[in-house]
Structures are given as C-alpha cells and as structure tokens.
C-alpha cells in the first residue's frame, strides 16, 4: 500500500504544490467573498434563524399556530394583501373542523356569474373558493397604497431569503432609523427590508387582536403565528411530504443495501481473479 512517505521526492513536491494551490485558491475565494460583502451598499440585515416547530425531519406543522396565524392574517393582513394559494377547503381538518371551514367561507362574498340573465352577482363563499383578494386588480391595489401594490402573501415565505425567519424578523423588526439614515415621508425603517425603508406601517403590536383560543396576543406571538400560517400557505403538502420521505428513504436504503451485497457477491470471482502473462518458451 503506497503512503505519502513512500512517494518519490518529486511526487511529494507535486502533491505539496497542489495542496498549496488548493488551499490558496480556497483562501482567495473566501477573502474575495468577504471583501465584496463589506463594500456592498445595498446590504440589509439577514434574519436570524429561529427554531420553528416544523423544521425537523420528523416534525409536522403546528396546527394550533396555523389557526392563530389565520386569525392574524384575516384581521390584520387581509385588508391589503391577498393569499392566492389558500382555499377554505385546505383549512378543513388542518386547523378547522369541516363545519368551521364552511362557516368561515360563507362569511366572505364572491363576485360570480354571469347568471341566466347575463348579470354578475354576489354570492356567499364556498369551501372551494380561494381566500378573497382585497382589491379587484393590481391597479386598484397600487392606487390605494400610494402607487405600489402590496404583494400577495401566498408564496411570500419562499419568495424572500430566510423564509419564515424573514417574515418574523420583518414583522418584529420595525425601529427608529440609525443616525444619518434618511427615511422619506410615509416610509418606515426596518433593517430586514432590502433598502431599509418600506411603505407598510408596523402591522403588529401587543393585543392587536384577541385569539379565539385565549393565547395572549403579544406582538412576537402574532408574528410567529402568521409566519407559520404563511409557511402553510406556501407549502400545504409539507406534512405529507415528510411522511412520504420516511417511506421512500427507508425503502431505497433497503434496496441499495440488498443490491450492494448482491452486486459484490456476483462480482467477487471476477475482481479476485489473477491475470498472468506467461510468454511462450522459445523452442530451441
């Protein structure tokens, strides 16, 4: 078996130089990355990592938190933001009973039609309906919000770096701007928002609503719950995904182990054979 000690000096030198070049290259890449980070004027605070109830390999969504999060969304966010990925039927057997989901849908009103007379009409919602949008179109949303339409929250969790960490950090991160940072009229400073100033006023504060389950509605509690709900909105199949993952990974591990053993069994004669070259004896 060859070791580094057994190698010739030229090979050792070559390997040493290769190692040096590799380490130097990695160091250069790291230093370049850091140097540019410091010079980038458009930096913003990265959301810290929080321990979410659903983040482990075997963890499912916290359905109580999703229910509270839906209450926050409905009472606070839904006035300006839509959520195109969630239908009332999806809340059924997740954070509501079927009856609750049906009643919740009925409280909303939807424009439907045309009817037999060719007229559009309003009807109460059904569980198949997606959560109502606050504005009829993008232009109306922009007009009502100073020229910029509030984003739909259906996929907002995945559309921002940091996912639900970002949502929580943004909602709890409003503060006075640091000295020298100019915030324009009608904007609010938030270090987690790209550029530092956003048009949305701080939406959450302590006791912004009363939870139906009696949980104290502190600002951080509301932020956590709505982040859980918005994660659910972006990936409602999360629990199903992890359950299926367990089955598939276990199955493939077993198949791989069996194939590895049988493969070795079949190949063992071939890879242990000895091939010799025996030159013919010269006939005298």
């Amino acid at each position, binding site marked *: 078996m060859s070791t580094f000690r057994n190698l010739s000096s030229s090979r050792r030198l070559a390997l040493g130089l290769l190692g040096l070049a590799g380490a130097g290259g990695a160091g250069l890449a790291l230093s370049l990355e850091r140097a540019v980070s410091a010079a980038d004027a458009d930096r913003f605070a990265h959301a810290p990592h929080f321990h979410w109830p659903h983040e482990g390999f075997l963890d499912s969504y916290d359905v109580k938190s999703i229910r509270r999060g839906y209450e926050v969304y409905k009472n606070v966010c839904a006035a300006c933001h839509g959520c195109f990925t969630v239908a009332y039927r999806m809340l059924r057997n997740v954070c509501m009973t079927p009856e609750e989901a049906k009643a919740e849908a009925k409280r909303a009103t939807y424009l439907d039609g045309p009817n037999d007379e060719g007229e559009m009409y309003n009807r109460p919602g059904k569980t198949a309906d997606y959560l109502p949008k606050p504005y009829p179109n993008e232009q109306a949303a922009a007009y009502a919000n100073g020229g910029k339409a509030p984003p739909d929250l259906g996929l907002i969790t995945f559309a921002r770096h940091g996912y639900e960490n970002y949502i929580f950090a943004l909602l709890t991160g409003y503060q006075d701007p640091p000295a020298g940072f100019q915030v324009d009229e009608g904007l609010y400073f938030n270090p987690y928002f790209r550029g530092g100033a956003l048009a949305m006023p701080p939406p959450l504060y302590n006791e912004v609503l009363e939870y139906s389950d009696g949980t104290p509605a502190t600002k951080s509690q509301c932020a956590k719950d709505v982040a859980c709900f918005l994660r659910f909105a972006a990936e409602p199949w999360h629990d199903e995904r992890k359950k299926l993952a367990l089955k598939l*990974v276990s199955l493939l591990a077993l198949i791989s182990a069996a194939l590895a053993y049988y493969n070795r069994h079949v190949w063992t004669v071939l890879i242990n054979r000895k091939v010799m070259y025996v030159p013919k004896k010269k006939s005298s």
Partner: protein
Amino acid sequence: MSTQFYKSNPLFKVFNSTLIELPAPPNISAFWNFGSLLSGCLIVQIISGLFLASAYSAGMELSFEQVFKAMEVSDKGWLIRYIHANGASLFFLCLYFHVGRGIYYGSYLYVHTWNVGVTILLLTMAAAFMGYVLPVNQMSFWGASVITNLFSEIPYVGPNVVQYIWGGVTVEGPTIYRFFAFHFLVPFIILALVVVHITMLHMTGSGNPLGIHSEVDKVSFHSYFSLKDGLGVALASGGFVLVCMYWPLVLGDDENFSLANPSVTPHHIQPEWYFLFAYAILRSIPNKLGGVVALLLSVLILYLMPFTGLAKKKGSMFYPVSKGLFWGFVVCVLALTWIGACPVEPPYVLTGQIFTVLYFMFYLLTPISAALWDALS
C-alpha cells in the same frame, strides 16, 4: 426455451444483444454508470413532464398562479413538480460527470458517438432553459429576456430573429406558448438521439480506464453490469429522494416565487446552477457579440475534441501532465460556476476572465502536452 425465444424474436433479440449478452470490458469503473443513470433521468423527466403538461396553462398571467395551484390540486402534483425541477439538476450533474469521464478517458475518439452525445448535451440545455421559463416567475422571465436578447447579436438578421422568437416586442404570451411547444417536443428528439448514441457505442464497444482494446477479456452485460448499474440507480435515487423530499427548493432561487414583473429587474439575474459556468463565460467578455461567441464556444468546442487525439495512448491515464490539466479544468469549471452566481463587479469580473481563459486553454494544452510527453518518453 426462453433463452432461444429472446435470441430469435426480432424485437427481443435487440434487447438481448443490448442489455443481456452485450460484451463489456470487466474493468470499467463507476464513472461508466452515468450513461445508464442518464437514461433513467431522461425517462423520469419525460414521464413527470407529461403529468405536468396535463395541468399546465401557458400564458404570461396564467402560468404562475396555475403552476402553484396545480401542485396542491393535482394528486401528488407537488411531488411531480419537485421531481421534474430537481430531476433537471440530477440530469445535468450526470451529464457533466459523463462528459468529464469522456474527456479524461479519451471517449471522444469514438467520433460519431461523441458528436451525437454533444448534440444531446446541447439539446438538453435548450430544453432545460425553455422549461425553466414556463412558470413565468420573476427569474425565469428575466432569464428568458437576457438569453433571447443574445440572438440580436446575429449580424443583419439578429433583431428580427429575436422578435420572431418572442412573437412580439418582448417576452410575452406567444413566447411562452412556443417555448412550451418546444419544451414538449425536444425531449423526444433527445430520446431518439439517445438510441442513436447507444447504437453507435455498441458498434465500437465501451471504452475502459486503461484505454486498451479488450476484445480478449469481456463479460456479458447481464448480470455484471445490470447489477452494477442497478446499484448506481438505487444510490442516485436515494440522494435524489433526499433532496426532493427534504430540501426541494435548495437548488432554486427566491425569485422563482415572485410573479414576473417586466418593470422590476431582480437584484441578481442568474440561471440555474448548471448553466452558471457558461453564464460566467458570457459575462467575462466586455463585448456583447464576443460574449455570445464565447458562450457558444464553451460547449461547441466539445465537437472539436475528436480532432485533438494527438497522443499515442488513449485517455489521460498515462499522461501525468494531461491529468493535472484535467483536474485544473475541473477547478476552472467549479470556479466559473461560483463566479456566475456573483454580482458583475470587481473582483469577480477579472477572476471570471482569468478562469475563462484557463477554461479554453485546457482544450489547446491537453493534446499538445500529451504529444510532447510521447515525444519525450
């Protein structure tokens, strides 16, 4: 009895000679597994793509919302999409290993097999790009705008060609319709070329790590290589399932979850990881036309490889300098992939330019160094 049936039936004897009794060198390593893995990837992509196409609505306004709603509404729609999106990454990972093995062990000397393979690589890149555009999210819209704009550099007819591709004055509805049509069609062309690729390979037989003719020592494909390939497929599937089920979005971009907005440019426009090396080469050239030419050359240069076989022995196994150049080339590709994801500003621009030069130097230096080594030894 059954053996004779397999040998005499016109249909089954093709499979018998291809998958059962095919003589194969016994010393081929795990790097030869990527061929069968690629066949598996293509089949998975075509089948998952058919399911996705059945729930897809093409259009600028419609696609984005429909794609995400279909993931929830269709039975296991999310799984199919995760498989298709991450399957593209696995496909390219296997492609790059396959091409890298071909370069290292001199497989490009099988000229026809190699050229058909490079054509498959090009078509796969085109299919992947068009598929990436279909959900019409912010990054895919801007990616489509940047890449289709490159055609404007074709002399005389460039601007007309771009408008013809767009079907309008910018990326809009007709662009998405035609991209969908081509994305649906191209995989079947690839499938046909794969059959040609395999047929040509079997006319010469597989290469091997020693680069020698091994007619005197071969074993049947089944059960030696059917098992070995099966193990490769099982292990790759394990890794693939882990990614799809636990980190399905790890290879994507946050901008993939925002609706395309033609009036807001994303902070960084960048393609998927498997195109980053070519994207870095494109950005390294200060001139737009020069960048487009370099981008095309970065892949088309593979067609020239069969003409670089100046060495006496096949492959790099017995050429230490060529081996060093090859691993340097691998470092170049990885570095360019990193540069492609970085913003266009110092020092990334200069770093990218240096690695671009080194990337192309590899193709020039390898045959020369091997010929010199032969002359000196």
